[in-house]
């Protein structure tokens, strides 16, 4: 069962700057000698640190306990000794405590034979508990604890369960690489989730460029007997967005969060598999290291807490002095000031830009060309919104839909006047006060 669905409207096709061979195997990144593990790697409040300097920690040991509904557990990704707990600036305006661990001692898991645990006999509560305690959060970017998404009200069931295999950014291919290497595991995790939510319809959504993976998945599905459609979607950014995937599948217009549908990124599903079947906490993830200055861009499996600096060493180093380093992809990634920023659960990729690419182009006046209106997937009028915000008319802008903006970056990408529309819209949203979690 394979069918194509198009983006309801808008979207852009950015130049594919992924310089990596998507087909190359995922390489294991070197274990960092010092891991810096922030307590804030998820949507809610930062986890409460449960270790202190001098403590010895084992690989996969709990070092931060979830604090509140949207918070998640944090585990040590390496064995060793806690050197210090310090404040770390993650990005503009956001900082959290981070545990600094110096590598030492033995690995409990890595390199040891792994035992599969049967999960069919476990209760829903046990399954959700395993996922929760492993600190699994949505790895596609939203970083909401996964057990919350899977906790369907008793007696109810979801209408739609989607395994989202579309990479969230144009030049990242970590999700693709994971799907190529672990189709069985992903399907198994999908089965677990289906047991939990009991959806009427289960769909595996793939990008058009991943058509080659369809036979492999069909075999895996046949083995397990899971009733699941495979849907191919156009590779137009931001097709990987959760709401867009759902509305493409439903054929409905865009609206707020879809009640009754559960969308899980394939990396998240793999983490669910590890948590349930392997009893392993989330301490590593696959990410893409790319960009012109990177000598050998590739997909890496990286332990959380590894500094970005180390990743480049695993990719043959930097061939040129980069002008800008971005955590994430080119459309939504956050530029970082220092290479010491660690990899966290949300890091789907690291992109380096050469000096010339990093220069911000000259800004011209808005000429009302309407390209931003054309590309906005959310039916907004970014040119009007940004002018309203600059005039201080935030309420008016909210009335015209500012709240629906997901900062996907299409408008600013397409703007011929190079107006930083997303930045202005984001400022407008922030100035209206922080939105309440949940």
């Amino acid at each position: 069962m394979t069918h194509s669905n198009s983006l309801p409207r808008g979207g852009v096709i950015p130049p594919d700057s992924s310089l990596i061979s998507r087909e190359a195997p995922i390489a294991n990144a070197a274990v960092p000698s010092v891991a810096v593990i922030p307590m804030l790697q998820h949507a809610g409040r930062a986890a409460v640190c449960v270790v202190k300097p001098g403590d010895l920690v084992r690989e996969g040991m709990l070092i931060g306990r979830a604090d509140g509904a949207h918070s998640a557990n944090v585990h040590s990704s390496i064995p060793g000794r806690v050197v210090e707990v310090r404040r770390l600036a993650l990005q503009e305006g956001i900082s959290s405590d981070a545990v600094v661990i110096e590598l030492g001692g033995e690995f409990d898991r890595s390199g040891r034979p792994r035992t599969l645990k049967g999960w069919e006999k476990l209760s829903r509560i046990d399954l959700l508990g395993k996922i929760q305690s492993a600190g699994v959060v949505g790895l596609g970017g939203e970083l909401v604890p996964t057990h919350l998404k899977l906790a369907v009200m008793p007696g109810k069931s979801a209408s739609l369960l989607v395994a989202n295999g579309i990479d969230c950014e144009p030049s990242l291919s970590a999700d693709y690489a994971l799907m190529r290497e672990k189709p069985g595991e992903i399907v198994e995790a999908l089965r677990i989730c289906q047991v939990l939510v009991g959806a009427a319809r289960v769909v595996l959504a793939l990008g058009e460029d991943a058509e080659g993976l369809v036979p492999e998945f069909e075999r895996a599905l046949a083995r397990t007997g899971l009733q699941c459609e495979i849907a191919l979607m156009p590779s137009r950014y931001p097709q990987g967005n959760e709401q867009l995937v759902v509305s493409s599948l439903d054929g409905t217009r865009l609206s707020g969060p879809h009640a009754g549908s559960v969308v899980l990124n394939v990396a998240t599903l793999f983490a669910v598999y590890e948590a349930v079947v392997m009893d392993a906490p989330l301490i590593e993830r696959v990410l893409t290291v790319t960009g012109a200055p990177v000598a050998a861009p590739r997909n890496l499996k990286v332990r959380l807490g590894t500094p970005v600096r180390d990743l480049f060493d695993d990719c043959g180093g930097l061939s040129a002095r980069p002008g800008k380093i971005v955590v994430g992809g080119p459309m939504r990634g956050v530029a970082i000031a220092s290479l010491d920023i660690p990899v966290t659960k949300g890091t789907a990729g690291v992109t380096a830009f050469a000096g010339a690419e990093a220069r911000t182009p000259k800004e011209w006046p808005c000429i009302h060309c309407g390209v931003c209106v054309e590309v906005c997937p959310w039916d907004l009028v970014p040119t009007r919104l940004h002018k309203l915000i600059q005039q201080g008319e935030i309420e008016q802008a909210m009335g015209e839909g500012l709240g629906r903006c997901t900062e996907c970056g299409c408008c600013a990408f397409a703007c011929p006047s190079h107006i930083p529309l997303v930045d202005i819209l984001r400022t407008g949203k922030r100035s209206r006060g922080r939105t309440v979690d949940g």
Partner: protein
Amino acid sequence: MAETSVSPAPGGLTLSPAPHLGAPMSTARMTWLVSLSLVPAAVWGGVLFGLPAVRVIVTSICVAVAAELASSALFRRFTLADGSAFLTGLLVGLLMPAGVPLYVPAAAAAFGILVVKQSFGGLGRNWMNPALGGVVFALLSWSSAMTRWAAVGDASVSTAVVPPLEALRPALSAPGAVGRPLEILSTHGYFFSTMDGRIVSWLNSHILSLFHASLPGGSYDILVGYVPGRIGEVSAPLLLLGAAFLLSRRIVRWQVPVSYVATFALLAWVFGGFAGGQGWFSGGPLFHVLSGSLILGAFFMAGDPVTSPLASTGKWIYGIGLGLLTFLLRFYGSLGDGVAVSIVLGNCAVPLIDKLVQQHAPARAREGIG
């Protein structure tokens, strides 16, 4: 401009907001490319009408640039680099007849830049096309000077000095004028080039006779643009060449020009025949599309992003409205060929069109929730 958080980090890394990719095209480049794509038509006009035409174009460009510089000094911001003043000057020049006294293009360019554009804060903020605003000002002020045509070819034949479209109106009111526009012109002694005579008669006798069809005299001249007229409007093929370039680079969107020309041609075909003493469906759509400044106006001025609607629904409404207005004003109006003034009229309605189309958009989004 907007306060963006672009700053070099201590390690020499740039910190700028996402997205980190951008459009390769820039607004200034787009504007200069529009000017570039007008060059072939401008050169044709220069060759056809000689030195007077060059003088008109140079005057209007110089005045436009000077006016832009003056307002730059007043508002303390340098805006010449965006190319819009040059383009306005060029368009004003192209919309003038070659024989016009030079103060007319000068006044039109100055009015366009200072009143129509800079009073509103410069490029992107004006709601009326500066070049057309200037031209309409000139049309209203100096209507007779705006019809001082320059001769093409054999200047001793008086009719060769008037553009076909202008010659058509008196010819139509003469008794016994029946037929398609070019036929009426021929029977009233309108002068076409000898080249035209040779090519059309060869085509008629060698090829079209096989299909029992014939072309009226003047077809070749009209198509190639070997006729009197405003400097930039005469050569339809060269204008279309420039337009094709702009469309292919997505500098001009196709919706407005295409719906504009199509609506106009349809109306001219259906109703245009009445003026020639005939009934329905007998107008000369091709003649009317190729004569006057319709193509120049549709692609280079109606397609101007600043003064056309944002969304594509609005663009269609705008284009169809322009076609209707141009039809009415060309067949019944008094201001030239009706193109300049109908686009200016259309400009007046653009903010309202945008408002109505946008008021529609949130309603659509609400449908999804409900």
